[in-house]
């Protein structure tokens, strides 16, 4: 499960550096714990992002310990970095409709080809409900933070389910309209 896309990784690292100065390794650990889900950050991506942030003047190296390797560098957020982070945090994201058009496509194509869209929707509902039940079970033993992420998934699956029920209720009229 990946909840943060590549573009937001840099803001996640900025946010973690706003909390405290850190080494690259610390950043990766903190990121994975909080946002990584089942897909932890690769070290390469951490250091690539850090050097980019540094080049843009949003973070700075505040100490280099003896030894070799990027891990020896300690990073800190700059004033410019704080401003950029604040701007990003306050900025609403474009709503991203869950473009699961495949559900819609299957309904339409089933109707067009004279197959049962209702049976497909029933099967899809079953799979969605199973996923919700598993997530609900997982949430009951999850930390508050993990639980909140599971809630996010539950609400989105529920939105799909509402659409499935809505579509199921309109199949007859939809079929008539398509065949005109």
């Amino acid at each position, binding site marked *: 499960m990946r909840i943060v896309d590549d573009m937001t990784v840099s803001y996640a690292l900025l946010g973690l550096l706003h909390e405290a100065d850190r080494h690259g390794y610390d950043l990766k650990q903190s990121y994975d714990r909080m946002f990584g889900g089942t897909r932890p950050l690769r070290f390469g991506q951490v250091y690539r992002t850090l050097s980019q942030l540094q080049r843009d003047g949003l973070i700075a190296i505040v100490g280099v310990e003896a030894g070799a390797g990027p891990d020896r560098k300690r990073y800190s957020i700059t004033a410019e970095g704080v401003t950029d982070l604040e701007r990003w945090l306050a900025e609403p994201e474009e709503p991203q409709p869950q473009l699961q058009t495949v559900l819609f496509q299957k309904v339409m194509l089933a109707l067009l080809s004279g197959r049962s869209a209702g049976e497909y929707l*029933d099967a899809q*509902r*079953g799979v*969605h*409900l*199973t996923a*919700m*039940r598993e*997530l*609900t079970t997982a949430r*009951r033993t999850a930390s508050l933070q993990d639980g909140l992420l599971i809630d996010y998934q*539950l*609400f989105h*699956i*529920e939105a799909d*389910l*509402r659409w499935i*029920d809505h579509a*199921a*209720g309109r199949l007859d009229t939809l079929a008539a309209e398509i065949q005109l």
Partner: protein
Amino acid sequence: MNEQAPLLIGRGLHKSFGPTLALRGVDLSLAAGEVLAVMGPSGSGKSTLLHCLAGILTPDSGEVTFAGRRIDQLPDRQRSQLRRTAFGFVFQFGQLVPELPVVENIALPLLLTGKKRRVALAAAQDWLQRLGLGDIGQRLPGEISGGQMQRAAIARALICGPSVIFADEPTGSLDSVAADEVMELLIDTAKATGAGAVLVTHEPRVAAYADRQVTVRDGRIAQPATVLGAS
């Protein structure tokens, strides 16, 4: 699920209200200790189904068996008796008596079965503590939150040690956070006491707490039940 015969069985249930066919041949069973969610759109017949299974309504045809005994043919008095002792009920609204403090509301089912007032109130007080309502026992229903009201309703449903809890949209009037709290409590207490539950809801998030879900549409079960743990 276990190999034993189901605890509660509905077979070929039909029920009409005037020209409206609410149930058109429903078969459904509940194992002991199982939590079953009955979903479906408004007017699908899911509440009618709950009322038939709980012995509140008599089906026009078909039969309801509880613990091996037909209950749809029992005389009213025996059915009321059964509902008081073997079943517990949680509804969406208006289930607490507004003039009675919360603790007395919870004690009501015990009082109705003839328990001494002192014993009933002590048991109610235990349930209040158990459900985290220890300090609101003396308040009136109008003075507590929706979530607290539903928790009190759960306590009242469980106080007689029922085998089956019937819940009709138990979180219908709550926001999602309070709904989650109420559902966790309902499931935890049902599992802890070994009670099964029939949970009528149109909300997938609520149904997801159940071991199994079925959907009622146009008075029939619309899909085969998905069994917990089946792959």
